């Protein structure tokens, strides 16, 4: 019945947003590409890295960051944005969460073009490690689902949550190794190692760059996902019935 409604909705949202534009969702890709190129030149100098190493890693980092920040920010509004429909038609509320996840995965697929260009440009081949990347992406997507169940529900009740989260995500960009690598730090920093986004980033980034993440990275990333999903499902199960009252 409603089983694939979220697929239709996510896809349609992408299609519509750019219906009257010539290159459509590739606008997101284009602006990301420009950011990769521009910051690549500056930060490679700043960090003293070879552009050949730095640029592909930066490209992948920004692509994944786009996915993660998109999921976190948009899941806050998952139910708020669907207020009209929630009060009219009793479709399962999970539709609204899944739709956001799906939409962001479609955007990811577009952005992967930057990755392909960067790798081709520097003749880099990720090898077999590449095939681990989908598992990393799956973990990120599952965390997006958890975000919807946690942040989506909380935001429906407390309208301060979305702006708080938007600010936190902006801050997180600087403490997460997207523009830089943990190796650039002279000492180990707790703020990096205690950051869950770091592990989720690395289980996607490393495979895409041809390196298999160590087992401990996978273990931590899976652990984070399990905790978030548990928290999410319990919160969602507890408050699902209240969402229609709150929005």
């Amino acid at each position, binding site marked *: *019945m*409603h089983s*694939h*409604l979220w697929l*239709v*909705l996510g896809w*349609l949202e992408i299609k*519509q*947003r750019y*219906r009257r534009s010539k290159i459509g969702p590739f606008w997101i890709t284009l602006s990301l590409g420009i950011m990769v190129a521009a910051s690549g030149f500056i930060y490679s100098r700043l960090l003293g890295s070879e552009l050949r190493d730095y640029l592909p890693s930066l490209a992948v980092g920004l692509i994944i960051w786009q996915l993660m920040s998109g999921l976190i920010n948009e899941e806050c509004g998952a139910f708020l944005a669907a207020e*009209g*429909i*929630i*009060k*009219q*038609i*009793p*479709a399962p509320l999970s539709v609204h969460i899944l739709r956001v996840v799906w939409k962001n995965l479609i955007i990811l697929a577009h952005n992967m073009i930057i990755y392909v260009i960067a790798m081709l440009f520097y003749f880099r081949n990720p090898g077999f490690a590449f095939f681990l990347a989908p598992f990393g992406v799956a973990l990120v997507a599952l965390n997006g689902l958890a975000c919807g169940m946690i942040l989506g529900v909380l935001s429906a*009740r*407390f*309208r*301060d*949550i979305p702006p*708080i989260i938007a600010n936190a995500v902006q801050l997180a960009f600087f403490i997460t190794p997207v523009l830089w690598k943990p190796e650039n730090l002279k000492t180990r920093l707790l703020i990096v190692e205690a950051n869950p986004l770091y592990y989720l980033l690395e289980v996607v980034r490393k495979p895409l760059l041809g390196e298999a993440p160590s087992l401990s990275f996978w273990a931590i990333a899976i652990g984070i996902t399990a905790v978030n999903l548990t928290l999410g499902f319990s919160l969602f199960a507890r408050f699902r*019935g*209240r969402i*229609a*009252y709150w929005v």
Partner: protein
Amino acid sequence: MPSISLQHVDVSFPIYEGVQRSLRHVVMATSTGGRIASDSRHRVVVEALKDVSFVADRGDRLALLGHNGAGKTTLLRVLAGIYEPIRGQVIAEGRVAPLFDISLGMDLDATGYENIRIRGLYLGMTEAEISAQTGEIAEFTELGQFLHMPARTYSLGMRTRLAFGVSTSITPDILLLDEGIGAVDANFVERADARLKALIERSGVMVLASHSMSLLRRFCNKALVLEHGAVSFIGSIDEALGAYASQREPITEKS
């Protein structure tokens, strides 16, 4: 066998005023210690439904009567499963189809055809059912080539026709109607009326909330009168309309 039953249903809405809806106050309230917090939180609650119980079986055409704010729309939303009651139970057997404010929830950037599909899916139709109905819906709407254009380009009347066309193409076990199901242009009214009548006839149970006595008398055989969220009368439509009229008399003496 389609049926719907409510047992001792209570619904109340917490009112979060601008200030109270913010996290800051809860955080501050809890951090300033339990007792003061609970005092300073004054949760204002509106009791929308109080101890509502009834059963509607196949063939029942139930009218919901009551003044504005008596709880008709809330009750319909409870029946639809949108609001989970605070207390009590709702047992619905069969596919529930709510037709409330049909003009809402249309995606203005999507084309007419896309809107047919989205709305159909939301209403619980399968892709196969939707494709089977699309031609007939398109014909009913008389939108022709406009169905390929975004709904944004439609006039209000055209939007209503589209929403009405899709919403009335379902075959529900339990049909819930709010009075928003009004049609607009005169030409359309007749055909809309026929379509609505056919929809009601093929539904198992129907609940209709309206202020229009003629509409209720025409389509309903039973009635439930709500007063301040509580059931004040339940029985046959004629008795209910009589009871409701006498209840209204002091206010609207002339009608």
